[in-house]
Protein backbone atom coordinates (compact mmCIF):
# COMPACT_ATOMS: atom_id res chain seq x y z
CA UNK A 1 0.00 0.00 0.00
CA UNK A 2 2.96 2.28 -0.28
CA UNK A 3 1.24 4.02 -3.15
CA UNK A 4 -1.23 5.85 -0.98
CA UNK A 5 1.35 6.40 1.70
CA UNK A 6 3.56 8.61 -0.50
CA UNK A 7 2.28 11.60 1.46
CA UNK A 8 3.89 10.30 4.60
CA UNK A 9 7.17 9.72 2.82
CA UNK A 10 7.14 13.34 1.64
CA UNK A 11 6.30 14.56 5.10
CA UNK A 12 9.06 12.47 6.57
CA UNK A 13 11.52 13.81 4.01
CA UNK A 14 10.56 17.40 4.79
CA UNK A 15 10.89 16.71 8.50
CA UNK A 16 14.37 15.34 8.11
CA UNK A 17 15.44 18.11 5.77
CA UNK A 18 14.24 20.67 8.27
CA UNK A 19 16.01 19.00 11.18
CA UNK A 20 19.17 18.56 9.17
CA UNK A 21 19.26 22.24 8.30
CA UNK A 22 18.83 23.17 11.95
CA UNK A 23 21.63 20.91 13.05
CA UNK A 24 24.12 21.31 10.26
CA UNK A 25 24.03 24.96 9.37
CA UNK A 26 25.83 27.51 11.47
CA UNK A 27 24.01 30.53 10.16
CA UNK A 28 21.25 31.57 12.54
CA UNK A 29 18.81 32.61 9.82
CA UNK A 30 19.26 29.27 8.10
CA UNK A 31 18.54 27.54 11.38
CA UNK A 32 15.25 29.41 11.54
CA UNK A 33 14.48 28.42 7.99
CA UNK A 34 15.14 24.80 8.85
CA UNK A 35 12.92 25.11 11.88
CA UNK A 36 10.15 26.45 9.69
CA UNK A 37 10.47 23.61 7.22
CA UNK A 38 10.36 21.17 10.10
CA UNK A 39 7.21 22.77 11.45
CA UNK A 40 5.57 22.83 8.02
CA UNK A 41 6.09 19.12 7.67
CA UNK A 42 4.15 18.58 10.87
CA UNK A 43 1.34 20.76 9.61
CA UNK A 44 1.13 18.61 6.52
CA UNK A 45 1.11 15.51 8.71
CA UNK A 46 -1.96 16.71 10.58
CA UNK A 47 -3.83 17.79 7.51
CA UNK A 48 -3.16 14.53 5.80
CA UNK A 49 -4.77 12.76 8.75
CA UNK A 50 -7.91 14.74 8.23
CA UNK A 51 -8.43 13.86 4.62
CA UNK A 52 -11.41 11.64 4.15
CA UNK A 53 -11.60 9.69 0.92
CA UNK A 54 -13.71 11.64 -1.56
CA UNK A 55 -14.18 14.33 1.05
CA UNK A 56 -14.12 17.95 0.09
CA UNK A 57 -12.79 20.90 2.01
CA UNK A 58 -14.49 21.23 5.40
CA UNK A 59 -16.68 24.16 4.41
CA UNK A 60 -20.42 23.57 4.53
CA UNK A 61 -21.88 23.81 1.06
CA UNK A 62 -25.06 22.73 -0.60
CA UNK A 63 -24.96 19.35 -2.25
CA UNK A 64 -21.82 17.99 -0.69
CA UNK A 65 -22.14 15.04 1.65
CA UNK A 66 -18.61 14.08 2.59
CA UNK A 67 -16.27 16.57 4.13
CA UNK A 68 -12.74 16.15 5.34
CA UNK A 69 -12.36 16.27 9.08
CA UNK A 70 -12.25 19.90 10.16
CA UNK A 71 -10.55 19.39 13.51
CA UNK A 72 -7.02 18.87 12.20
CA UNK A 73 -7.37 22.04 10.20
CA UNK A 74 -8.30 23.92 13.34
CA UNK A 75 -5.43 22.42 15.25
CA UNK A 76 -3.03 23.34 12.53
CA UNK A 77 -4.24 26.91 12.38
CA UNK A 78 -3.25 27.14 16.03
CA UNK A 79 0.05 25.49 15.34
CA UNK A 80 0.74 27.79 12.39
CA UNK A 81 0.16 30.79 14.65
CA UNK A 82 2.58 29.33 17.15
CA UNK A 83 5.07 28.81 14.36
CA UNK A 84 4.69 32.39 13.18
CA UNK A 85 5.22 33.67 16.69
CA UNK A 86 8.31 31.51 17.08
CA UNK A 87 9.74 32.71 13.78
CA UNK A 88 9.04 36.32 14.65
CA UNK A 89 10.74 35.96 18.01
CA UNK A 90 13.63 34.13 16.44
CA UNK A 91 14.14 36.79 13.82
CA UNK A 92 13.95 39.54 16.44
CA UNK A 93 16.67 37.76 18.36
CA UNK A 94 18.69 37.41 15.17
CA UNK A 95 18.52 41.16 14.58
CA UNK A 96 19.66 41.88 18.13
CA UNK A 97 22.41 39.28 17.92
CA UNK A 98 23.68 40.84 14.71
CA UNK A 99 23.72 44.27 16.34
CA UNK A 100 25.59 42.96 19.33
CA UNK A 101 28.08 40.61 17.69
CA UNK A 102 28.35 41.76 14.10
CA UNK A 103 27.90 38.28 12.72
CA UNK A 104 25.35 35.52 12.37
CA UNK A 105 27.65 32.55 12.03
CA UNK A 106 27.58 30.30 15.07
CA UNK A 107 31.31 29.59 15.07
CA UNK A 108 32.20 33.26 14.91
CA UNK A 109 29.71 34.01 17.64
CA UNK A 110 31.25 31.46 19.97
CA UNK A 111 34.71 32.74 19.13
CA UNK A 112 33.76 36.28 19.94
CA UNK A 113 32.23 35.15 23.20
CA UNK A 114 35.37 33.33 24.20
CA UNK A 115 37.53 36.24 23.12
CA UNK A 116 35.69 38.82 25.14
CA UNK A 117 36.42 36.89 28.31
CA UNK A 118 34.17 34.58 30.19
CA UNK A 119 31.90 37.44 31.18
CA UNK A 120 30.16 39.13 28.32
CA UNK A 121 30.24 42.92 28.33
CA UNK A 122 27.72 43.92 30.94
Amino acid at each position, binding site marked *: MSGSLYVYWLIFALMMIGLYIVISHGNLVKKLIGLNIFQVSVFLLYISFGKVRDGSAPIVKEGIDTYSHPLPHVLIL*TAIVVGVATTA*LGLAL*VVRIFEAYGSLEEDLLHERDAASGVDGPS
Partner: protein
Amino acid sequence: MTAELPALQVVIPLLCAPLCLLFRSRTAAWLMFLLAALASLGCAVLMAGQVAGGDMLRYEMGGWEPPVGIEYVIAGFNVPLLLLVSTIAVVVAVYGRRSLESEISSSRIPLLYACLCLNLTGLLGIVSTGDVFNAFVFLEIASLSSYALIAMGKGRRALLAAFQYLVIGTVGAVFILIGVGLTYAVTGSLNMADLAARLPDAYGNRALTAGAVFVFVGFAVKMAVFPLHGWLPDAYAEAPSAVSTFLAATGTKVAIYAFMRFAFTVFGAALVFERLPLDRIGLSLASLAMLVGAAAACFQTDLKYLLAWSSVAHVGYIVAGYSLATVDGVQASYLHLINHAVIKGSLFAAAGILMLRLGSVRLEALSGLGRTMPWTFGAIAVAGLGLVGVPLTAGFVSKWALATALIDEGQGLVLAAMLVSSLLAVVYTGRIIEIGWFREPSGSTAAAGTTPVSMGVATWALVLASLYFGVDPRLPASLADAAASALLGPGGG
Protein backbone atom coordinates in the same frame (compact mmCIF):
# COMPACT_ATOMS: atom_id res chain seq x y z
CA MET B 1 -17.82 31.68 41.03
CA THR B 2 -15.99 28.79 42.58
CA ALA B 3 -17.03 26.57 39.71
CA GLU B 4 -15.08 28.83 37.37
CA LEU B 5 -11.89 28.61 39.39
CA PRO B 6 -9.99 26.28 37.04
CA ALA B 7 -10.53 28.70 34.20
CA LEU B 8 -10.01 31.87 36.23
CA GLN B 9 -6.68 30.63 37.33
CA VAL B 10 -5.38 30.75 33.79
CA VAL B 11 -7.47 33.61 32.48
CA ILE B 12 -6.51 36.19 35.07
CA PRO B 13 -2.77 36.13 34.33
CA LEU B 14 -3.60 36.06 30.64
CA LEU B 15 -5.65 39.24 30.96
CA CYS B 16 -3.04 40.92 33.09
CA ALA B 17 -0.44 40.53 30.38
CA PRO B 18 -1.73 43.18 27.96
CA LEU B 19 -2.73 45.34 30.94
CA CYS B 20 0.91 45.44 31.95
CA LEU B 21 1.67 47.03 28.64
CA LEU B 22 -1.29 49.34 28.41
CA PHE B 23 -0.41 51.49 31.37
CA ARG B 24 3.18 52.06 30.28
CA SER B 25 4.22 52.53 33.87
CA ARG B 26 6.72 50.35 35.66
CA THR B 27 4.80 50.39 38.91
CA ALA B 28 1.50 49.59 37.25
CA ALA B 29 3.06 46.74 35.32
CA TRP B 30 4.55 45.34 38.50
CA LEU B 31 1.23 45.68 40.27
CA MET B 32 -0.52 43.80 37.48
CA PHE B 33 1.92 40.94 37.76
CA LEU B 34 1.63 40.87 41.52
CA LEU B 35 -2.15 40.83 41.21
CA ALA B 36 -2.02 38.03 38.68
CA ALA B 37 0.24 36.02 40.95
CA LEU B 38 -1.88 36.61 44.04
CA ALA B 39 -5.08 35.80 42.17
CA SER B 40 -3.69 32.53 40.87
CA LEU B 41 -2.38 31.67 44.33
CA GLY B 42 -5.83 32.34 45.73
CA CYS B 43 -7.45 30.15 43.09
CA ALA B 44 -4.90 27.42 43.69
CA VAL B 45 -5.47 27.41 47.43
CA LEU B 46 -9.23 27.32 47.02
CA MET B 47 -9.06 24.49 44.55
CA ALA B 48 -6.58 22.62 46.73
CA GLY B 49 -9.17 22.70 49.47
CA GLN B 50 -11.82 21.41 47.15
CA VAL B 51 -9.86 18.40 45.91
CA ALA B 52 -8.30 17.57 49.26
CA GLY B 53 -10.51 14.57 49.80
CA GLY B 54 -9.51 12.89 46.57
CA ASP B 55 -12.14 14.62 44.44
CA MET B 56 -11.57 15.86 40.96
CA LEU B 57 -12.68 19.18 39.56
CA ARG B 58 -13.65 19.22 35.92
CA TYR B 59 -14.33 22.38 34.01
CA GLU B 60 -15.61 22.51 30.47
CA MET B 61 -14.25 25.40 28.48
CA GLY B 62 -17.01 27.29 26.75
CA GLY B 63 -19.56 24.79 27.93
CA TRP B 64 -18.52 22.28 25.25
CA GLU B 65 -18.68 18.78 26.63
CA PRO B 66 -15.62 16.62 26.56
CA PRO B 67 -14.34 14.64 24.76
CA VAL B 68 -15.23 17.05 22.01
CA GLY B 69 -14.65 20.17 24.06
CA ILE B 70 -11.57 21.12 26.00
CA GLU B 71 -11.76 20.48 29.69
CA TYR B 72 -9.62 21.45 32.65
CA VAL B 73 -9.03 18.81 35.30
CA ILE B 74 -7.86 19.68 38.78
CA ALA B 75 -7.02 16.75 41.02
CA GLY B 76 -4.40 15.60 43.47
CA PHE B 77 -1.77 15.29 40.76
CA ASN B 78 -1.68 18.90 39.68
CA VAL B 79 -2.62 20.74 42.84
CA PRO B 80 0.96 20.67 44.20
CA LEU B 81 2.17 22.30 41.01
CA LEU B 82 -0.53 24.92 40.97
CA LEU B 83 0.39 25.87 44.50
CA LEU B 84 4.09 25.78 43.74
CA VAL B 85 3.96 27.87 40.58
CA SER B 86 1.68 30.52 42.01
CA THR B 87 3.60 30.77 45.29
CA ILE B 88 6.87 31.18 43.44
CA ALA B 89 5.21 33.80 41.25
CA VAL B 90 4.18 35.79 44.31
CA VAL B 91 7.64 35.51 45.81
CA VAL B 92 9.27 36.56 42.54
CA ALA B 93 6.85 39.47 42.25
CA VAL B 94 7.91 40.72 45.66
CA TYR B 95 11.55 40.03 44.92
CA GLY B 96 11.64 41.19 41.34
CA ARG B 97 10.69 44.79 41.70
CA ARG B 98 14.06 46.13 42.83
CA SER B 99 16.05 43.40 41.15
CA LEU B 100 14.63 44.08 37.71
CA GLU B 101 14.87 47.83 38.06
CA SER B 102 18.58 47.46 38.46
CA GLU B 103 19.12 45.00 35.65
CA ILE B 104 16.70 46.00 32.89
CA SER B 105 16.36 49.36 31.15
CA SER B 106 13.20 51.09 32.38
CA SER B 107 11.43 51.20 29.03
CA ARG B 108 11.51 47.40 28.86
CA ILE B 109 10.20 46.65 32.32
CA PRO B 110 6.50 46.68 31.39
CA LEU B 111 7.34 44.29 28.54
CA LEU B 112 9.13 42.00 30.93
CA TYR B 113 6.20 41.88 33.30
CA ALA B 114 3.88 41.18 30.40
CA CYS B 115 6.09 38.24 29.43
CA LEU B 116 6.13 37.06 33.05
CA CYS B 117 2.32 37.12 33.10
CA LEU B 118 2.25 35.13 29.87
CA ASN B 119 4.76 32.66 31.25
CA LEU B 120 2.65 32.24 34.36
CA THR B 121 -0.41 31.71 32.17
CA GLY B 122 1.37 29.10 30.12
CA LEU B 123 2.66 27.19 33.13
CA LEU B 124 -0.67 27.19 34.93
CA GLY B 125 -2.37 26.17 31.73
CA ILE B 126 -0.12 23.17 31.17
CA VAL B 127 -0.80 22.09 34.70
CA SER B 128 -4.57 22.53 34.63
CA THR B 129 -5.51 21.27 31.23
CA GLY B 130 -7.08 17.95 30.45
CA ASP B 131 -6.59 18.09 26.71
CA VAL B 132 -3.36 17.07 25.02
CA PHE B 133 -3.35 19.66 22.27
CA ASN B 134 -4.22 22.36 24.75
CA ALA B 135 -1.19 21.27 26.71
CA PHE B 136 0.93 21.84 23.61
CA VAL B 137 -0.51 25.32 23.10
CA PHE B 138 0.14 26.37 26.67
CA LEU B 139 3.57 24.83 26.49
CA GLU B 140 4.38 27.05 23.55
CA ILE B 141 2.96 30.10 25.31
CA ALA B 142 5.18 29.40 28.28
CA SER B 143 8.20 28.63 26.11
CA LEU B 144 7.93 31.65 23.86
CA SER B 145 7.57 34.00 26.77
CA SER B 146 10.55 32.39 28.47
CA TYR B 147 12.69 32.85 25.33
CA ALA B 148 11.81 36.54 25.43
CA LEU B 149 12.44 36.76 29.16
CA ILE B 150 15.86 35.18 28.90
CA ALA B 151 16.82 37.46 26.04
CA MET B 152 16.35 40.46 28.29
CA GLY B 153 19.34 39.47 30.40
CA LYS B 154 22.37 41.61 30.80
CA GLY B 155 24.99 41.21 28.16
CA ARG B 156 24.85 39.87 24.65
CA ARG B 157 25.31 36.27 25.75
CA ALA B 158 21.73 36.32 26.94
CA LEU B 159 20.63 36.77 23.34
CA LEU B 160 22.58 33.75 22.17
CA ALA B 161 21.35 31.70 25.11
CA ALA B 162 17.77 32.64 24.28
CA PHE B 163 18.25 31.79 20.61
CA GLN B 164 19.77 28.41 21.38
CA TYR B 165 16.94 27.68 23.76
CA LEU B 166 14.45 28.80 21.10
CA VAL B 167 15.80 26.42 18.51
CA ILE B 168 16.06 23.37 20.69
CA GLY B 169 12.87 24.19 22.59
CA THR B 170 10.89 24.54 19.39
CA VAL B 171 12.22 21.25 18.09
CA GLY B 172 11.08 19.67 21.35
CA ALA B 173 7.66 21.28 21.18
CA VAL B 174 7.19 20.19 17.60
CA PHE B 175 8.09 16.65 18.62
CA ILE B 176 5.28 16.85 21.14
CA LEU B 177 3.02 18.09 18.39
CA ILE B 178 3.97 15.15 16.21
CA GLY B 179 3.33 12.76 19.04
CA VAL B 180 -0.04 14.29 19.79
CA GLY B 181 -0.89 14.11 16.13
CA LEU B 182 -0.04 10.43 15.86
CA THR B 183 -2.03 9.67 18.98
CA TYR B 184 -4.95 11.59 17.53
CA ALA B 185 -4.65 9.67 14.30
CA VAL B 186 -4.91 6.38 16.15
CA THR B 187 -7.79 7.28 18.47
CA GLY B 188 -9.51 10.35 17.08
CA SER B 189 -9.54 12.00 20.47
CA LEU B 190 -7.55 14.70 22.18
CA ASN B 191 -9.04 14.50 25.65
CA MET B 192 -6.73 12.95 28.23
CA ALA B 193 -9.37 10.96 30.05
CA ASP B 194 -10.85 9.73 26.79
CA LEU B 195 -7.43 8.73 25.50
CA ALA B 196 -6.73 6.81 28.67
CA ALA B 197 -9.89 4.82 28.06
CA ARG B 198 -9.25 4.20 24.36
CA LEU B 199 -5.53 3.65 24.20
CA PRO B 200 -5.20 0.28 25.94
CA ASP B 201 -6.98 -1.30 22.98
CA ALA B 202 -4.45 0.16 20.60
CA TYR B 203 -1.28 -0.76 22.41
CA GLY B 204 0.22 -2.84 19.63
CA ASN B 205 -0.13 -0.03 17.11
CA ARG B 206 3.25 1.22 15.96
CA ALA B 207 1.98 4.69 15.20
CA LEU B 208 0.93 4.94 18.80
CA THR B 209 4.31 3.77 20.03
CA ALA B 210 6.02 6.28 17.77
CA GLY B 211 3.69 8.99 18.97
CA ALA B 212 4.42 8.17 22.58
CA VAL B 213 8.15 8.28 21.97
CA PHE B 214 7.90 11.63 20.20
CA VAL B 215 5.88 13.09 23.06
CA PHE B 216 8.33 11.88 25.67
CA VAL B 217 11.40 13.05 23.81
CA GLY B 218 9.76 16.42 23.40
CA PHE B 219 9.09 16.71 27.10
CA ALA B 220 12.57 15.47 27.84
CA VAL B 221 13.88 18.52 26.00
CA LYS B 222 11.75 20.79 28.11
CA MET B 223 12.75 19.02 31.29
CA ALA B 224 16.44 19.23 30.43
CA VAL B 225 17.07 15.58 31.08
CA PHE B 226 20.56 14.49 30.15
CA PRO B 227 21.49 14.49 27.25
CA LEU B 228 18.99 17.10 26.16
CA HIS B 229 20.05 19.54 28.85
CA GLY B 230 22.37 21.68 26.75
CA TRP B 231 20.16 24.74 26.73
CA LEU B 232 19.68 24.99 30.47
CA PRO B 233 22.99 26.28 31.86
CA ASP B 234 23.25 29.20 29.46
CA ALA B 235 19.57 30.05 29.68
CA TYR B 236 19.39 30.10 33.47
CA ALA B 237 22.70 31.80 33.96
CA GLU B 238 22.30 34.62 31.44
CA ALA B 239 18.70 35.53 32.26
CA PRO B 240 17.86 38.42 34.57
CA SER B 241 18.02 37.32 38.21
CA ALA B 242 14.30 37.42 38.92
CA VAL B 243 13.66 35.50 35.71
CA SER B 244 16.25 32.86 36.62
CA THR B 245 14.61 32.50 40.00
CA PHE B 246 11.21 32.03 38.45
CA LEU B 247 12.27 29.69 35.66
CA ALA B 248 14.55 27.58 37.81
CA ALA B 249 11.78 26.96 40.28
CA THR B 250 8.96 26.35 37.82
CA GLY B 251 9.95 25.73 34.21
CA THR B 252 11.43 22.26 34.33
CA LYS B 253 9.10 21.24 37.17
CA VAL B 254 6.00 21.84 35.07
CA ALA B 255 7.55 19.91 32.18
CA ILE B 256 8.24 17.01 34.55
CA TYR B 257 4.66 17.10 35.73
CA ALA B 258 3.46 17.05 32.12
CA PHE B 259 5.68 14.04 31.42
CA MET B 260 4.23 12.19 34.40
CA ARG B 261 0.70 13.13 33.47
CA PHE B 262 1.14 11.86 29.93
CA ALA B 263 2.96 8.73 31.04
CA PHE B 264 0.62 7.63 33.78
CA THR B 265 -2.78 9.03 32.91
CA VAL B 266 -2.78 9.25 29.13
CA PHE B 267 -0.62 6.56 27.64
CA GLY B 268 -0.75 4.42 30.74
CA ALA B 269 2.03 2.84 32.75
CA ALA B 270 1.46 -0.45 30.97
CA LEU B 271 2.55 1.02 27.65
CA VAL B 272 5.20 3.38 28.90
CA PHE B 273 6.98 1.34 31.50
CA GLU B 274 6.31 -2.20 30.43
CA ARG B 275 6.17 -2.28 26.65
CA LEU B 276 8.48 0.65 26.14
CA PRO B 277 11.53 0.32 28.38
CA LEU B 278 11.11 3.85 29.65
CA ASP B 279 11.75 2.75 33.20
CA ARG B 280 15.22 1.46 32.41
CA ILE B 281 16.00 4.34 30.07
CA GLY B 282 14.68 6.81 32.60
CA LEU B 283 16.77 5.37 35.40
CA SER B 284 19.94 5.27 33.29
CA LEU B 285 19.56 8.81 32.00
CA ALA B 286 18.67 9.99 35.49
CA SER B 287 21.84 8.45 36.90
CA LEU B 288 23.91 10.07 34.17
CA ALA B 289 22.21 13.39 34.78
CA MET B 290 22.92 13.20 38.50
CA LEU B 291 26.59 12.48 37.91
CA VAL B 292 27.27 14.77 34.95
CA GLY B 293 25.33 17.68 36.39
CA ALA B 294 27.01 17.56 39.76
CA ALA B 295 30.45 16.98 38.26
CA ALA B 296 30.09 19.90 35.86
CA ALA B 297 28.92 22.13 38.70
CA CYS B 298 32.18 21.47 40.52
CA PHE B 299 34.18 23.07 37.73
CA GLN B 300 32.18 26.23 37.26
CA THR B 301 33.62 29.64 38.01
CA ASP B 302 30.32 31.50 37.95
CA LEU B 303 27.72 31.02 40.67
CA LYS B 304 24.69 31.02 38.37
CA TYR B 305 26.26 28.49 36.01
CA LEU B 306 27.06 26.34 39.05
CA LEU B 307 23.45 26.49 40.20
CA ALA B 308 22.18 25.74 36.70
CA TRP B 309 24.32 22.61 36.38
CA SER B 310 23.18 21.60 39.84
CA SER B 311 19.61 21.86 38.53
CA VAL B 312 20.50 19.39 35.77
CA ALA B 313 21.58 16.95 38.46
CA HIS B 314 18.45 17.45 40.53
CA VAL B 315 16.19 16.91 37.55
CA GLY B 316 17.91 13.55 37.43
CA TYR B 317 16.75 12.77 40.96
CA ILE B 318 13.16 13.57 40.07
CA VAL B 319 13.29 11.50 36.89
CA ALA B 320 14.73 8.55 38.80
CA GLY B 321 11.82 8.72 41.21
CA TYR B 322 9.02 8.38 38.73
CA SER B 323 10.90 6.01 36.43
CA LEU B 324 10.43 3.41 39.14
CA ALA B 325 6.71 3.57 38.32
CA THR B 326 5.76 2.81 41.92
CA VAL B 327 3.70 4.92 44.30
CA ASP B 328 6.75 5.49 46.51
CA GLY B 329 8.81 6.53 43.52
CA VAL B 330 6.27 9.01 42.22
CA GLN B 331 5.81 10.36 45.72
CA ALA B 332 9.55 10.89 46.05
CA SER B 333 9.51 12.68 42.67
CA TYR B 334 6.81 15.08 43.72
CA LEU B 335 8.50 15.68 47.05
CA HIS B 336 11.80 16.54 45.43
CA LEU B 337 10.05 18.61 42.80
CA ILE B 338 8.59 20.83 45.51
CA ASN B 339 11.65 20.89 47.73
CA HIS B 340 14.12 21.54 44.95
CA ALA B 341 11.99 24.33 43.52
CA VAL B 342 12.03 26.09 46.87
CA ILE B 343 15.75 25.57 47.43
CA LYS B 344 16.86 26.48 43.90
CA GLY B 345 14.55 29.48 43.87
CA SER B 346 16.14 30.78 47.04
CA LEU B 347 19.66 30.26 45.64
CA PHE B 348 18.98 32.11 42.42
CA ALA B 349 17.29 34.85 44.43
CA ALA B 350 20.41 35.15 46.58
CA ALA B 351 22.50 35.27 43.40
CA GLY B 352 20.33 38.17 42.29
CA ILE B 353 21.11 40.02 45.49
CA LEU B 354 24.80 39.47 44.81
CA MET B 355 24.37 40.78 41.29
CA LEU B 356 22.73 43.90 42.65
CA ARG B 357 25.28 44.62 45.37
CA LEU B 358 28.50 43.29 43.88
CA GLY B 359 27.80 43.61 40.17
CA SER B 360 29.05 40.11 39.53
CA VAL B 361 28.27 36.52 40.46
CA ARG B 362 31.66 35.05 39.66
CA LEU B 363 32.89 32.87 42.50
CA GLU B 364 36.03 34.96 43.00
CA ALA B 365 33.87 37.97 43.67
CA LEU B 366 32.39 36.12 46.63
CA SER B 367 35.57 36.21 48.74
CA GLY B 368 34.83 37.03 52.31
CA LEU B 369 31.13 37.26 51.66
CA GLY B 370 30.49 35.90 55.12
CA ARG B 371 31.80 39.13 56.52
CA THR B 372 30.58 41.71 54.04
CA MET B 373 27.09 40.33 53.46
CA PRO B 374 26.39 37.82 56.23
CA TRP B 375 22.65 37.46 55.67
CA THR B 376 22.97 36.69 51.98
CA PHE B 377 25.86 34.35 52.61
CA GLY B 378 23.85 32.64 55.32
CA ALA B 379 20.98 32.12 52.88
CA ILE B 380 23.33 30.61 50.31
CA ALA B 381 24.96 28.36 52.91
CA VAL B 382 21.69 27.06 54.34
CA ALA B 383 20.13 26.53 50.92
CA GLY B 384 23.36 24.90 49.75
CA LEU B 385 23.11 22.43 52.61
CA GLY B 386 19.61 21.71 51.33
CA LEU B 387 21.08 20.85 47.93
CA VAL B 388 23.52 18.47 49.59
CA GLY B 389 20.73 16.86 51.57
CA VAL B 390 21.84 17.51 55.13
CA PRO B 391 19.31 16.39 57.73
CA LEU B 392 16.97 19.14 58.92
CA THR B 393 16.73 20.57 55.40
CA ALA B 394 14.06 19.82 52.85
CA GLY B 395 16.66 18.23 50.60
CA PHE B 396 17.21 15.43 53.10
CA VAL B 397 13.54 14.55 53.28
CA SER B 398 13.20 14.08 49.53
CA LYS B 399 16.52 12.24 49.29
CA TRP B 400 15.41 9.91 52.03
CA ALA B 401 12.15 9.25 50.22
CA LEU B 402 14.00 8.61 46.98
CA ALA B 403 16.58 6.37 48.66
CA THR B 404 13.82 4.32 50.26
CA ALA B 405 11.99 3.98 46.96
CA LEU B 406 15.19 2.96 45.16
CA ILE B 407 16.25 0.39 47.74
CA ASP B 408 12.76 -1.06 47.77
CA GLU B 409 13.01 -1.71 44.05
CA GLY B 410 16.55 -2.96 44.34
CA GLN B 411 18.06 -0.19 42.23
CA GLY B 412 21.45 -0.21 43.87
CA LEU B 413 23.33 1.45 41.00
CA VAL B 414 20.98 4.39 40.80
CA LEU B 415 21.24 4.77 44.56
CA ALA B 416 25.01 4.80 44.27
CA ALA B 417 24.75 7.49 41.57
CA MET B 418 22.52 9.53 43.82
CA LEU B 419 24.95 9.28 46.73
CA VAL B 420 27.95 10.16 44.55
CA SER B 421 26.03 13.13 43.23
CA SER B 422 25.27 14.26 46.79
CA LEU B 423 28.94 14.02 47.63
CA LEU B 424 29.80 16.11 44.58
CA ALA B 425 27.21 18.56 45.85
CA VAL B 426 29.26 18.72 49.05
CA VAL B 427 32.23 19.68 46.90
CA TYR B 428 30.61 22.53 45.04
CA THR B 429 28.66 23.81 48.01
CA GLY B 430 31.76 23.50 50.15
CA ARG B 431 33.69 25.58 47.62
CA ILE B 432 31.19 28.38 47.86
CA ILE B 433 31.14 28.28 51.65
CA GLU B 434 34.91 28.15 51.83
CA ILE B 435 35.35 31.11 49.52
CA GLY B 436 32.79 33.13 51.40
CA TRP B 437 33.86 32.18 54.89
CA PHE B 438 37.57 31.64 54.90
CA ARG B 439 38.87 34.12 52.39
CA GLU B 440 39.50 37.77 52.98
CA PRO B 441 37.20 40.20 51.19
CA SER B 442 39.16 41.49 48.22
CA GLY B 443 38.94 45.07 46.98
CA SER B 444 36.57 44.21 44.18
CA THR B 445 34.00 42.80 46.57
CA ALA B 446 33.16 46.19 48.00
CA ALA B 447 29.43 45.81 48.30
CA ALA B 448 27.56 48.88 47.17
CA GLY B 449 24.55 50.14 49.07
CA THR B 450 22.31 47.87 51.07
CA THR B 451 20.21 44.89 50.14
CA PRO B 452 16.64 45.97 49.45
CA VAL B 453 14.29 44.63 52.08
CA SER B 454 11.94 43.07 49.53
CA MET B 455 14.73 41.01 48.00
CA GLY B 456 16.12 39.92 51.36
CA VAL B 457 12.71 38.96 52.69
CA ALA B 458 11.78 37.00 49.56
CA THR B 459 15.07 35.09 49.57
CA TRP B 460 14.89 34.27 53.26
CA ALA B 461 11.21 33.32 52.99
CA LEU B 462 12.22 30.57 50.57
CA VAL B 463 15.21 29.54 52.69
CA LEU B 464 13.08 29.33 55.83
CA ALA B 465 10.48 27.37 53.88
CA SER B 466 13.15 24.85 52.92
CA LEU B 467 14.21 24.55 56.55
CA TYR B 468 10.63 24.26 57.70
CA PHE B 469 9.87 21.55 55.17
CA GLY B 470 13.00 19.79 56.37
CA VAL B 471 11.75 19.71 59.90
CA ASP B 472 7.99 19.38 59.35
CA PRO B 473 7.43 17.85 55.93
CA ARG B 474 3.76 17.18 56.42
CA LEU B 475 2.56 19.67 53.83
CA PRO B 476 4.74 18.58 50.90
CA ALA B 477 4.45 14.94 51.95
CA SER B 478 0.66 15.00 51.98
CA LEU B 479 0.56 16.80 48.63
CA ALA B 480 2.98 14.26 47.17
CA ASP B 481 0.97 11.39 48.64
CA ALA B 482 -2.27 12.64 47.12
CA ALA B 483 -0.53 13.24 43.81
CA ALA B 484 0.96 9.76 43.64
CA SER B 485 -2.31 8.04 44.44
CA ALA B 486 -4.16 10.23 41.96
CA LEU B 487 -1.66 9.41 39.22
CA LEU B 488 -1.24 5.73 39.84
CA GLY B 489 -4.46 4.92 41.56
CA PRO B 490 -7.48 3.44 39.88
CA GLY B 491 -9.07 6.76 39.10
CA GLY B 492 -6.01 8.18 37.38
CA GLY B 493 -7.07 10.24 34.42
